């Protein structure tokens, strides 16, 4: 097991390095550099002066040197400073990360619990009206993009019915309490959990149907075991195993969904920050956020793999 963890960690290193190359390369192929951002055309800079500035910031060095310098800084935890307001990138990301973790975490928990429950429910009633209905709804859930769902939910529940606030994270005039936080959290969580609910349901339903037909379930039935006990003791735990991988798999989609959901509900998290960075051409912030997102996804995949290995003793570690 220790060997497996060690090897899995080792595989992560080249993947992480390739991602840093992509992140750096994306900015590199874009036209222009930092001098275009800070030097106004009306300053009438001479070319020599511009070159002097480039030299001062090390921009005249070859790509590889600049990449290694950047990587070393990143590994030290120094993500640089924002172009737009000069604040440190790492601190800015830190502030916004918690809001997104709250939103996306709640959505993933809600989505997986409801999705797994519905998956088992429909699998036990294959071809029934319920099965047909819920499978169709999950098909809708996968097909409707989060920004359309978000707008519709916002329109109906916040604007027409007025049940929930239309955006933001806390009231302006009062201190946030648990109750207000939940009020503000309901709509964005609902929108963001639609895709996980549908995915977890389809996955669980499929896994459950597969398990129910297994030989050992027939044996259990043949021994006269009560149906309830077969389902929950023999079927469910085994069906749940492949579902574990879905946690890691659904993370990239969750990040993307968060960008849209946060935009629609003005949630002050990573998604809205990312758009700020894109619209302001805030290159250091963009690179920093790309890096953090990549790290989160990588770590989540790692944890998923390890959790799967722990949960399923049939997996060989060597």
């Amino acid at each position, binding site marked *: 097991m220790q060997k497996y963890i060690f090897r899995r960690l080792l595989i992560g290193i080249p993947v992480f390095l390739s991602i840093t190359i992509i992140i750096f390369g*994306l900015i590199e192929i874009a036209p222009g550099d930092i001098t275009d951002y800070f030097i106004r055309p009306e300053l009438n800079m001479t070319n020599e002066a511009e070159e002097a500035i480039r030299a001062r910031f090390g921009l005249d060095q070859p790509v590889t040197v600049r990449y290694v310098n950047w990587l070393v800084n990143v590994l030290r935890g120094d993500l640089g400073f924002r172009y737009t307001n000069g604040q440190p990138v790492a601190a800015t990301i830190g502030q916004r990360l918690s809001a997104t973790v709250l939103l996306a975490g709640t959505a993933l928990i809600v989505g997986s619990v409801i999705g797994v429950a519905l998956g088992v429910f429909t699998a036990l009633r294959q071809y029934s009206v319920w099965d047909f209905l819920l499978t169709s709804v999950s*098909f809708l859930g996968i*097909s409707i*993009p989060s920004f359309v769902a978000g707008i519709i939910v916002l329109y109906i529940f916040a604007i027409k019915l007025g049940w929930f606030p239309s955006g933001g994270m806390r009231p302006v005039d009062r201190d946030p309490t648990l109750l207000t936080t939940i009020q503000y959290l309901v709509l964005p969580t609902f929108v963001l959990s639609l895709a996980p609910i549908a995915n977890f349901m389809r996955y669980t339903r499929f896994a459950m149907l597969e398990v129910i037909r297994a030989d050992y379930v027939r044996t259990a039935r043949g021994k006269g075991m009560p149906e309830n006990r077969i389902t929950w003791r023999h079927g469910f735990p085994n069906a749940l195993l492949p579902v574990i991988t879905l946690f890691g798999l659904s993370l990239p989609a969750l990040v993307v969904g968060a960008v849209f959901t946060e935009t629609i509900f003005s949630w002050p998290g990573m998604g809205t920050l990312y758009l700020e960075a894109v619209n302001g*051409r805030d290159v250091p912030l963009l690179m920093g956020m790309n890096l953090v997102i990549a790290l989160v996804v990588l770590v989540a995949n790692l944890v998923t793999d390890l959790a799967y290995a722990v949960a399923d003793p049939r997996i060989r570690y060597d």
Partner: protein
Amino acid sequence: MTDKTTRQPIAVLVTDEDKAKLEKRDDKRALRRFLRNRPAVIALGVLLIIILLTIGAPLIERYRYDAIDLRARASPPNELHWLGTDGVGRDVWSRLLNGGQVSLVVGFGATLIATLIGTVLGALSGYYRGWVDMVIMRITDVFMTFPSIIIMLTLAAMLPRTVWTIVFIIGGLSWTGTARIVRSQVMSIREQEYILACRALGYTDGRIITVHILPNVFGSLVALVTFAIGSAILTEAGLSFLGLGVPPPTPSWGNMLETARNLDILRNLPWMWIPPAIMLVITVLSVNFIGDGVRDAVDPRMVI
């Protein structure tokens, strides 16, 4: 020492002609299975109607999509403007039809590019294996782990924005699924005896791959390609919704939806954003239903 029977040429059990017949019958069977799938057939009809409407936009529209009528700004649907007008008095019906053109061009164009890249990389990977396979598959892994829309957002912010940049950005980043499927198919096909025969006849690798392997791979790609069109349409709409896709005044369903980010428009002027939302959902639902039907028809045992 030599036995007569073993020296006889291996009996040709299945001639090429038989094989062609079998394949044809298989295709027919798949087609019949698809036609029996009622939701998929209805969806195909709906999609054809949408395609006809958007292509025929110049014939059906009553105003040009970028014609500004400042006297009729934000007017609700009436007999002049069937679906009303937007904030600067452009006809929503006309923008809806023309926006559909953009969505479909991006959907098909991006999928074509993605399929080309995915097929080439997958074929190289599966045919040559070894270090070629190693390198290509590791690259694929990296692109699969990293949410591609994030890279798209960064690129969209950096590059000049036109419909074609969007097509290339989306196409250039959505080839991973195709590459994996083509790779696994090519890997199993290259072990078959007729490929050995091709090699014995001295055919070049390029000819073996393009003429003898890839045609047999495409069947397994049809469903994936169909789903890819739907997801490319959604990606374009998403980018445009965030203001990073197709730039105005060119309409697209996504940038028409973007107006709904304004709470005032969302609340009071629903005719500006409900039509593109409905069209987008109908189109993507149709594409997904067709994809489901194709998958079930081609390979009933396939999951996802």
